[in-house]
C-alpha cells in the first residue's frame, strides 16, 4: 500500500494509510523495546540527511532502522559535507539516492523535503523542513493518543503554547480535526494558530487564552515550547511563559484519564514534578517515535505490504 511512497506532508497520507502505519507500529512495539529481534530490513540502507540539528527524530529513525536489521548512513552536521562547498540540495539528494534505499531529510528551508522527493527515486521521508511540515511527529502523536484511549474521535484535545511557529502543531491540528477530535487551542494572543491552518481544519476549533478554561475536562494536553526568541522583550517572555506552564498542582484538577503530551525538548512549560504524576506521557510519546518510524520504514521499503 505504501511501498515507494514519499511522506513529505501529513496530507500525503489517506486515513487508510495512516491506520495501516498505526497497525504495523503496534506490532513493532516488542521489537522497539528490544524484547524481540528482527531482520526485516536486513540489507537495506537508510540515509539520514540532517541539515539542521535534531536529537529525537534522528536517533529514533536510526534506532528504528537498526532494530529492524538495516543499516544507516548519513550526517547531522552539514558543515562537514559538500553542502558547505555550495552544492545544491538537488545534487546531494541525487547522489545519496544512489547510495541508499530510503532517505530521511531535515532541512532549515521550507519545501526542502518536497524538492528532495522530486529528485530522489527512492522514498523520501520529511523529518522537518523549516517551519513547514513534520509528518512523522504528527503520526507518533496520534499513535500515542490511540495507544492511550483506543480512539481519537470525540476526545477533547487542547493544544497549548506556541501555536504560531510550532511546526508540529499545525499538521497535528489539521489531522486531529479530520479524525473527529474536539480540538481546543490555547495560546498567548501573539502566538495564535495561523488562520490558514484553521481554514484547513475539518471544523472550527475553540480558541482560549487560559489553560484554566480547559483544565478540568480535556482528555489530552498537548503542550509546546514557547521560544524566548519570539519575544523582543524578555520581561514579556517571562510573563507569557509563566502563564502557559503546567504545574503539578494543575494536574490534580485534571480528569483522571487525562494525559499530558509534549513533542520535546521541553524547557519550562512543564514543571519537572509533573513527570512523576500519572498524567505525564511525553517520554512514552518519545518512545513511540521508534515503532511508528519502524512501521514507516518497513512499509515504504515494501518489507510489509
Amino acid at each position: 500500500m505504501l511501498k515507494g511512497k514519499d511522506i513529505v506532508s501529513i496530507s500525503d497520507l489517506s486515513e487508510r494509510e495512516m491506520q495501516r502505519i498505526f497497525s504495523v507500529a503496534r506490532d513493532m512495539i516488542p521489537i522497539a523495546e528490544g524484547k524481540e529481534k528482527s531482520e526485516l530490513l536486513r540489507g537495506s540502507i537508510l540515509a539520514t540527511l540532517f541539515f539542521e540539528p535534531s536529537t529525537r527524530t534522528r536517533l529514533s529513525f536510526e534506532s528504528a532502522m537498526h532494530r529492524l536489521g538495516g543499516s544507516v548512513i548519513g550526517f547531522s552536521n552539514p558543515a562537514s559535507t559538500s553542502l558547505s562547498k555550495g552544492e545544491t540540495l538537488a545534487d546531494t539528494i541525487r547522489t545519496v539516492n544512489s547510495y541508499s534505499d530510503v532517505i530521511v531529510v531535515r532541512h532549515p528551508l521550507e519545501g526542502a523535503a518536497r524538492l528532495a522527493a522530486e529528485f530522489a527515486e527512492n522514498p523520501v521521508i520529511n523529518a522537518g523542513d523549516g517551519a513547514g511540515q513534520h509528518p512523522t511527529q504528527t503520526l507518533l502523536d496520534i499513535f500515542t493518543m490511540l495507544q492511550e484511549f483506543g480512539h481519537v474521535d470525540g476526545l477533547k484535545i487542547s493544544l497549548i503554547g506556541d501555536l504560531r511557529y510550532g511546526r508540529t502543531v499545525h499538521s497535528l491540528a489539521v489531522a486531529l480535526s479530520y479524525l473527529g477530535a474536539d480540538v481546543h487551542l490555547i495560546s498567548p494572543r501573539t502566538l495564535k494558530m495561523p488562520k490558514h491552518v484553521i481554514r484547513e481544519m475539518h471544523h472550527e476549533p475553540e480558541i482560549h487564552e487560559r489553560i484554566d478554561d480547559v483544565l478540568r475536562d480535556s482528555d489530552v494536553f498537548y503542550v509546546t515550547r514557547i521560544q524566548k526568541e519570539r519575544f523582543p522583550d524578555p520581561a514579556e517572555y517571562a510573563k507569557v511563559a509563566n502563564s502557559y506552564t503546567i504545574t503539578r498542582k494543575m494536574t490534580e484538577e485534571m480528569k483522571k484519564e487525562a494525559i499530558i503530551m509534549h513533542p520535546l525538548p521541553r524547557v519550562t512549560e512543564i514543571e519537572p514534578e509533573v513527570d512523576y504524576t500519572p498524567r505525564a506521557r511525553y517520554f512514552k510519546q518519545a518512545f513511540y517515535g521508534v515503532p511508528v518510524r519502524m512501521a514507516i520504514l518497513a512499509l515504504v521499503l515494501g518489507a510489509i505490504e
Partner: protein
Amino acid sequence: MNEQTLKVQKIKNGIVIDHIPCGMALKVLKILGIEGDRGSTVTMAMHVNGKNGPKDIVKIEDRNLDEREIDKIALIAPSATVNIVENYEVVKKHRVHVPMQIKGIVKCMNPKCITNQREPVESEFTVLSEEPLILKCRYCGREMKQKDVIESII
C-alpha cells in the same frame, strides 16, 4: 467617429487587452515587459467608461501574446479579454482564465522557501481561489493573495 474611439485609437495589427480592472493597466504592461522605449507602439487608456463601469484598456501594435503571458495577465486582471486584431478587425477574442497550476511565473514570497534558493526547480502554485485570488506554493505551502502575487510575478 465617437468620443470613445477618439480617446483610444484603432490599431491595424496587434492585440487589445480590454476590461482590465481600473488602475491595473500599468501593471499589465510591466508584466509583459513593455517599457515603451522600443518595439511596439502602445496605447493605454485608464478609467475609461465602459458598459459595465470604468475599466482600463491596453493596445499593443504588431505583437502577439503567448500562453504564459496570457496566464500572467489572468493573475492580475482576471476579468480581462484579449482581442487579436488583424487589418483593423478583431479576428479572435478570448477571455483570460486563471490556470489550475501556475508554474514558473510567480516567485514565492516566502524568503525561506526552497524555490528561492539556487536549486534547479521552478516555482509552482496551486490556485486555491480565483476570486479573490489565493495561490498556495506547492513546496513550502505559503499562501499568497493577489496583492502579493502582483509584486511577485517573474
